[in-house]
C-alpha cells in the first residue's frame, strides 16, 4: 500500500508486477505437467555412450549482432527508443540531463568523431537512460557493451538486447580479443559506444573501481572518452530489487578525454575515474565546489567510505537524500536591500 502522504497512487508498474504473478500462477501447472510427461514435451535424454555433436557456440560473447545494425533493425530501434522506451524512462526515472554543451564543439564538426561514453553503473535502467540521454549525432549510431554472460546467455534475451538497445556482448572480466576487435571495427565504422568501466552493476549502491577496458579501447581506436555520471538509478531499480519504483535521475556528461602522449592505459583509466568522480560531486553539490575539490583531490569517492556494514549503508542513504535534491536548485528571488 502506498503511504497516505505518498505523492502518487500505487503505480502502474506495481499493478503490472501483480499481473505477472497471476500469469506465473496460471502457467506453472502446465510447465509441471509437461515435465511429468517427458519427451517430446521436454528435451530428450541422451543415451549412454552416445556423443551429441555440440552446436557452434553462438551465444554469450560469440553472439553475432551484425543484423541489429542493418537499416531495418535501426528503423525499428529508432521507433522503440523514441517511443515506448523514451516514455517508460521518463515515467519511471524523470531524467535531468546536464553537460551536453560540453560536446557542442564535436557536434558541430562536419564529421563528428565516434565517442566512448563511460557512465557509472547501478542499474539495468542505466542503459535505457543512456539510449535517450546521449545527444545527437551520436544517439542514432550508438552501441552498448552488455555483459555477455547476462544479456546474451539466452537467445531471446540476446535478440531483445541487440534489437532494442543495440547491445553487443562483451566479456565482463577481461576485454577479450574477439570483443575488442569487434568494438574497434564498430568504432572505425563510426559507431559510438556505451561501456560501463565498473564491469557490472553496483552490489551495494556505492560505485566500484574502474576497469581499464574503456581506456584500452580509446587508446586503440583514438576515440575520445566522455565521462558520464548517472545518479538515482540505484534507488529506482538497483541490483537485487524485484520491481522498480519511481524516482528522479541526473545524467551529467563531462568534457571529452583523450589519452595523453605519455599516459598508459592504467593512468588514463584512473583519469577517467577521477572525471566521473568530479561529475558525481558536481551532481550532488555544484560545479564550483566539485572543481575546487578536484583541484586538491578531495572529491568524495564513488566507491564510498572505507568502513563496512550498516555505517556504509547509512552513508549511502544520506548521499541519496542529497542526490534527490540534485542540481538546478532554484534561486530564491533576491531583493536588494533598499534601506528605509
Amino acid at each position, binding site marked *: 500500500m502506498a503511504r497516505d502522504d505518498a505523492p502518487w497512487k500505487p503505480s502502474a508498474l506495481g499493478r503490472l508486477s501483480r499481473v505477472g504473478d497471476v500469469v506465473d500462477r496460471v502457467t506453472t501447472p502446465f510447465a509441471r505437467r509437461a515435465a511429468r510427461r517427458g519427451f517430446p514435451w521436454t528435451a530428450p535424454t541422451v543415451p549412454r555412450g552416445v556423443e551429441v555433436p555440440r552446436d557452434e557456440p553462438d551465444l554469450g560473447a560469440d553472439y553475432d549482432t551484425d543484423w541489429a545494425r542493418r537499416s531495418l533493425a535501426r528503423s525499428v530501434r529508432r521507433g522503440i527508443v523514441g517511443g515506448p522506451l523514451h516514455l517508460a524512462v521518463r515515467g519511471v526515472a524523470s531524467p535531468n540531463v*546536464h*553537460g551536453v*554543451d560540453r560536446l*557542442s*564543439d564535436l557536434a*558541430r*564538426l562536419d564529421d563528428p568523431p565516434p565517442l566512448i561514453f563511460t557512465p557509472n553503473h547501478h542499474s539495468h535502467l542505466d542503459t535505457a537512460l543512456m539510449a535517450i540521454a546521449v545527444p545527437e549525432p551520436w544517439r542514432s549510431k550508438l552501441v552498448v557493451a552488455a555483459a555477455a554472460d547476462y544479456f546474451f546467455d539466452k537467445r531471446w534475451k540476446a535478440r531483445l538486447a541487440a534489437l532494442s538497445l543495440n547491445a553487443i556482448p562483451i566479456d565482463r572480466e577481461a576485454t577479450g580479443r574477439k570483443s575488442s576487435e569487434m568494438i574497434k571495427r564498430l568504432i572505425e565504422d563510426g559507431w559510438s559506444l556505451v561501456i560501463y568501466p565498473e564491469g557490472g552493476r553496483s552490489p551495494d549502491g556505492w560505485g566500484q573501481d574502474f576497469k581499464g577496458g574503456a581506456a584500452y579501447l580509446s587508446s586503440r581506436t583514438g576515440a575520445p572518452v566522455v565521462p558520464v555520471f548517472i545518479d538515482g538509478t540505484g534507488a529506482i531499480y538497483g541490483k537485487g530489487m524485484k520491481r522498480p519504483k519511481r524516482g528522479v535521475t541526473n545524467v551529467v556528461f563531462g*568534457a571529452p578525454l583523450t589519452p595523453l602522449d605519455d599516459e598508459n592505459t592504467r593512468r588514463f583509466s584512473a583519469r577517467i575515474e577521477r572525471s566521473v568522480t568530479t561529475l558525481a560531486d*558536481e551532481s550532488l553539490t*555544484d*560545479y*564550483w*565546489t566539485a*572543481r*575546487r575539490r*578536484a*583541484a*586538491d583531490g578531495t572529491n568524495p569517492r564513488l566507491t564510498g567510505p572505507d568502513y563496512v556494514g550498516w555505517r556504509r549503508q547509512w552513508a549511502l542513504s544520506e548521499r541519496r537524500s542529497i542526490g534527490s535534491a540534485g*542540481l*538546478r*536548485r*532554484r*534561486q530564491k528571488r*533576491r*531583493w*536588494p536591500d*533598499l534601506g528605509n
Partner: protein
Amino acid sequence: MPRPGFVLDVDRSTPPILFWRGENFSLEKLPAGRSRVIYPAEPLPAIDDVDGAIRHALLNPIDHDPLPSLLFPGMRLTIAFDDVSLPLPKMRRPDVRQRVIEAVLDLAADAGVDDVHIIAALALHRRMTEAELRHAVGDRVYDAFAPRGLLYQHDAEDPDNLAFLGTTPHGEEVEINKRAAESDLLVYVNINLVAMDGGWKSTATGLASYRSLRHHHNPDTMHKSRSFMDQHRSELHKSNWRMGKVLLDSGVKVFQIETTLNTDTFPQPFEFLSKREWEWNARDRMTFLATTKALGRTPARLARNIFHSIEAPHQMTSVQAGEVEAVHRITTDHVYAQELVEVKGQTDILTMGIPYISPYNVHSILNPILVQVMAMGYYFNMYRGMPLVREGGVIILTHPCRPEFNPVHHPSYIDFFEQVLADTTDPHVMSQKWEKRYAEDEWYRHLYRTGYAYHGVHPFYMWYWGTHGMKHCSRVIVVGGDPKTVRRLGFVPASTMDDALEIASDVVGRTPTITHLHTPPLMVADVI
C-alpha cells in the same frame, strides 16, 4: 573561403531588395542607375577548438602576466561579464561567456581561490532574468554561484556598493562597482559584436554609476563621436579611456578577455535573411512568401515571441586576453576583418530596414524611441571615415513604429514619449530641462533596482545616441510607420518607398543617389 562584403550597383536586372520592417520584412525595388546596396561579408570561419583557444589566451596574455600567476589562495577575484544586450540575437548554447568564465574558474580552482564573485556588468540596463543569466553563464556556473549570492547584477544606484575612484583631467568622475574596484583582480569577460564594444568601455561603462556615466552619455559627447565604430574619432571612447586611466592609477587590476563572433546570424528556416536576393533558391523564395504572409496575419505579440526565440548560430572567431588597450586593438582588427565593407563616396539618401531587435529590447518590444536609436544611433553610425549619407541628406527607414512599450522593461520610456517628446526633440534642450528629473525619480530608481526596468534616464541616453545623425540629416522618413507616432519622434511618415522618395525629392532633388544598408547581419561601411 567566405566572400567579403561588397557594394552592388542597382540596374534594371537587380531583383527587389529585402527591407526589414520590425517583425516582418518586404521587398522593395530601388531606382536603377543611381542606387546601390551594401552587402555584409559572409561569416568568417570559426575557431574549431574553442576551449583550447580560450585556455591559450589565458596562459599567453598580451602585455600581461599569465592568469595563473595572478591567482593565489586568499585573494578576492571578481569576474564581470557583458549583459543581455550582447550578442544579438542571443547565441546558441553554450554562450561564449560561459566557456570563458568556466575556463577562468578552472584556473582559479587550481590556484585555490575561494573568494569569487561574478557580476553582470549592466550599467543602467535592466537586470537579467534567471533564464537569461543561465543562458549567458550556463547552468553549472549559475547553480554554483547564484544560490549563494555570489553571482549577481551590478546596481548603479546602490551607494553602499559603489566606489569613487577619482576624476579625469576633464573633470569626469569615476565611480564603479565597489567589489570590482576593491578586488585583487578584476577579470572582464566581453563579447565584441561591433567595434564600439570592449576596451575601457567594458569596465568604465558596464560597472559604472549614473554619476560616472553622465559624463560621456550626453548630447555633446555623442555629437562629437564620429563614429562610435571608430574608436579614435569617438569622444565617447576617449572619455572611457580617460576613465580607464583613473582606474589604473587608483590600483584597479583588470585582466581583460575579449572575444569576437562571426556574423552567422540566422538559423534555418530564416537563413535566407542573410543571403543575397539573387542567390535565393526556390525554397528560400517559398519561405519568404510563407513567412511574410503568415507574419502579416500573426498578432504582433506572437510574432515578437517567435523572433525573440531565435538563437543565432554565432561562432567565436577570436579570443584575446591581457592588458585592456593592447587586447582591444587586436579585437578591433578582428571585428573590422568581419564587418568592414569599402564604400566609395557618400549618398543623398540612405535607406535601412529596422529589424525586430536592438541591444535594449531583448525579449521585449522595439518601441518608437528604440526605433530612433537603431536608425540614428546605430545604423547611421555604422561607418568609418565619413557618414554614408551626405550632410543635409535624407534617411529613409522602414518600420511599423507602433506606439507600443513594454511597461516592465521600459517604464520611463512611456513617460519620455508622452511628456518629453511632446515638449521637444532637441537632445540638448531635453538634457537641460528634463534629464535630472527622470534620472533621480525614486519610482524609476526602485523599478531599476528591484524589477526588470531600464534606469529612468535610459530613454534620454537613447535619444542622445542619435544626436549626430539628427543634426547631420535634413529629414528622416519612416515608411509604414504609425503617422502620429512618427511625427512625435520628429520624423516624416510615408506609406510606401515611392512616397518616401517623392517626399525626399524637395530636399535632395528628383534624381538623388540612394544607398541601402543590407543589414543585419552587421557591417561597417568604410567610406572613402
